[in-house]
């Protein structure tokens, strides 16, 4: 496998996704980045923007099993993780896997479930295993969670705790499609496209789960110059030092940024990361990890605006000073 082949694969995936899921190229790209960076995505957007369709389409193209959980206030942790049931015939307790045992999980309206249910996903998302009755059960690999939440409704919702938010590699904000995209969408529906039945599109399965793992392994060999690590650190540190920030980005944020940048480099057919790869995903990676000061929030400052201002203040890496290190082909992996 080489970068050019990988770029071609990603391009094909993009094209194939586009056959069912029209527009939102940025979101599709970010979701793919998160998937191959071994992360999870929190998708914020109003209902009806095709979030479920996107996951189903990806599952089919990537050859992964997909399950959906509709989070509700009465959802119990065991409804997600599974529980131990007594088998009367065999006279023993047996673990019955919950819907979390899948490769692609769509956690719809995740903020409608109470904190204890949300916490049940913490271990799954971070450790990729589930512990029930003292027994740990590994989750399939790859394991990818795409959670959604509605930004408008607040009644009857439970905001995600910071610990869980930090587990999401990215928080993406999905907007209404443009006029042209929506026109294309309606034309597709007019011509027989049914989002509930993807067979009408005849999507091609391009990868298998094993291929995803192989690609992930290749991505870990992508070169990251020391200056870029320094750049990521300076960004993260700047978010902590900013006067309007109560809680800055965690070290996990830096790791997430590095992984996302590597995948982005691979998507663009490069075997080395450049500052653009980092900068491209800073917003999505950091926006849900920052907690602003109350004063700043009341003045209307948002995480996005703050991150944008950080980006204009933190100089991009020189690379010149670390030519020697680059020439030696040093690469880093996490």
């Amino acid at each position, binding site marked *: 496998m080489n970068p050019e082949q990988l770029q071609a694969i990603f391009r094909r995936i993009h094209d194939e996704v586009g056959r069912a899921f029209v527009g939102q190229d940025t979101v599709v790209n970010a979701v793919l980045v998160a998937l191959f960076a071994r992360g999870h995505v929190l998708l914020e957007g109003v209902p009806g923007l095709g979030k479920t369709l996107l996951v189903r389409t990806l599952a089919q193209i990537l050859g992964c099993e997909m399950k959906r959980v509709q989070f509700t206030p009465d959802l119990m942790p065991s409804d997600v993780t599974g529980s131990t049931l007594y088998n009367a015939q065999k006279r023993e307790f047996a673990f019955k896997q919950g819907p979390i045992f899948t490769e692609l999980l769509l956690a719809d309206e995740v903020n409608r479930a109470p904190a204890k249910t949300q916490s049940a996903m913490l271990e799954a998302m971070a450790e990729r295993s589930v512990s029930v009755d003292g027994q740990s059960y590994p989750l399939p690999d790859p394991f990818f969670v795409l959670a959604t939440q509605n930004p408008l409704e607040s009644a009857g919702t439970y905001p995600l705790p910071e610990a869980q938010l930090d587990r999401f590699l990215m928080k993406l904000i999905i907007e209404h499609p443009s006029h042209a995209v929506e026109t294309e969408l309606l034309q597709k529906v007019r011509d027989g496209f049914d989002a509930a039945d993807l067979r009408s599109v005849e999507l091609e399965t391009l990868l298998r789960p094993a291929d995803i793992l192989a690609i992930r392994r290749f991505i870990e060999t992508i*070169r990251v110059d020391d200056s870029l690590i320094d750049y990521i650190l300076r960004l993260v540190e700047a978010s902590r030092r900013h006067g309007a920030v109560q809680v800055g980005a965690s070290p996990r944020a830096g790791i997430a940024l590095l992984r996302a940048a590597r995948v982005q480099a691979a998507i663009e057919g490069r075997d*080395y990361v450049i500052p653009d790869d980092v900068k491209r995903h800073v917003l999505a990676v950091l926006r849900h990890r920052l907690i602003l000061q109350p004063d700043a929030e009341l003045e209307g400052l948002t995480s996005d605006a703050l991150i944008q201002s950080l980006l204009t203040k933190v100089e991009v890496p020189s690379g010149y000073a670390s030519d020697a290190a680059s020439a030696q082909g040093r690469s880093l992996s996490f």
Partner: protein
Amino acid sequence: MRPLGRMLTLALALFVPELAWADGAGGLFGDSDPSSPHEPAPFCSDPAHQLPAFEAAHAETNARLCQLLSGAPGGRQPVCPQISACPWPLEGEAAVDPKWRWLDALRLPRGLSEILVWGLWLTLIGGILAGLTWLLIKVRRDNTAVSVDRPLLHPQSPGFQLPEQSAMALLNQAEREADHERWQDAAQTIYIAALRHLDQSRLVRYHPASTSGEYALALRRHPGLLGWFQGVAEQVERMHFGDGQIEPTRLRALIREAQAKFKHGVWIGLLAVLNAGLFGCQASAPRLLDSEAPRGFKSLYRHGLASNLAFRKGMLSSDPDAEPSDLVIITEPGALLNAEGGLQGALEPYLTRSISVLVIGDGLKSPHPGLALAPADALNETDLLAAPLESQGLIDDPCMLMTREAWQRFAGSPPLLPPNTPRFVLDPSLEDLDAFRQVAVMDRFSALVFAKKPFHRNAILSADHASIVDEEGELRRGRGCAYYLASGDLFSNASMEIESNRRFALTLLRALAFDRSITWLTDSGTSPRESAFGHSASLPLLFQATLTAILLVVMLGASFTPLRDPPVTTHQRFVEHAMALGDHYFRAGEPGLQHSAKQLAIYLVSQEQDRARRLGSWVWVAKQLAETHQIPEAEVTRCLELGLDPKLAAPQGKDLDKLLGWLGHLIEGKKQS
């Protein structure tokens, strides 16, 4: 100095047309000095005037006129303008000793000498420009030679600033580094050169925190530059962040491509050639006309008009005694046309007081620009026909136009005109003669005489051997005459540069005023700037300038297009503050809610400031709010106290919820009202 001045004037006229005719016929460096109209008349020192030839021609005309008139009934002697002998020696006569006169034979012909002088000027200017160019190239070469061994910092190094060197110099440096196979330095330098060029062209804004991808995004509307820049960025990034490999062939190709892109000089040269071509292809060179008659008149003044001329700013007075002159010249009749009785009404008091008036009209409003009108009665006295009438560029076809009455009056002895001169009889009752209606309604102007294209002065006298005027038609002295010159072009700077025009104008004014005093009213009803612009015929120049600008945009683009990223200002809505408040409540719990309550109370106080000022006390404000919103007065007072007292903290627990509710009600009610 004068040729250089004219050349500079012509160059400036490309961009500032008004400068060309701003002051005198010579332009910026002309010798017209409006502030000193009383300088000794350089009539004799003007080699172009050719005084001897003029005197001879005039003497011949005079003689023939006298010969003709001697046979006319009454034996009237013509009144001819007397040109006095020049009181100063002609130029060159005194300076040259007679024994050196033989050197005159060695003088070059006039045309050849001009070519020689211009050639010398051009050689001199070319030499200076060549020297400056050589110097500039040498300095740049020295600069680049010094810096060739000093690799430049990476653009994104801390504290990096783009170098002062030009993009072209940096490119040359990159080429030399490539020649020495210092590929990394070459790639680095070409990247900096690219940033320098793009920043200088205002296509991108260099910023240490910007990446190549962002620069490329800024260039998305310039595909030609985009592809090249991406190629450069790829090389540099691979070197810094990748395997450190450089493709020498690709790098050289990028340098060559950049050199072609940066060579603005070629484009500017092409534009200059194009401009010169456009200038030459214009249907007519810009007419350096000037309707500001006094300027032209001053030129005339310098060329020998009697010194009994006074300029005065102001409109024509209704009281003739206010103008103690024998001839008043008005340059703007438009205002008089609007006066009571029109132009004729305005002039009548002057004419009855034996003061003649010369009206110089606006040529744009006249159907016949350059048309000269004179009362029929004045013809014989003014000697217009006796003088050599010559003019260039004013009227295309020589002709004479008379009213029916004048024609009948001169039926027996019509004025002498050149052979084959069309003679029109104008009947004011003819409705279909629209073109003449404007002049026909002026009853006072019974005869109209056109100024002519140059025709041989002898033709005037030889065309008709009859007497010029009837004895009875002679104008009685002591009565003023009105003359109308439909256009001021005759007295423009450009017109006065033509010798025959100048001579005609001199003759005309001398004939009108003799040695009597002349007052020139120079007040202008319209803006001189607009008038000058309107008469400048600068449309071709403007078109040329516009075309040049468009070509510059197309070819160079960079400096002529706005920056890609205009500043965007966003305004936060109240709802966003409310959302932020909600978010904060969810995360921060009660402390955040207390803070929010405090802020809302301050907001409420700020909203009610005006009411408090009006009522004089916050107590009354609380009463009014309580009545308006149906809220207990004590609660309103609590809310206001929280906002007014900076030390007072918001309550906790259920009180806090209650207080927030009241605050929300008060603020929301305020918004609704």
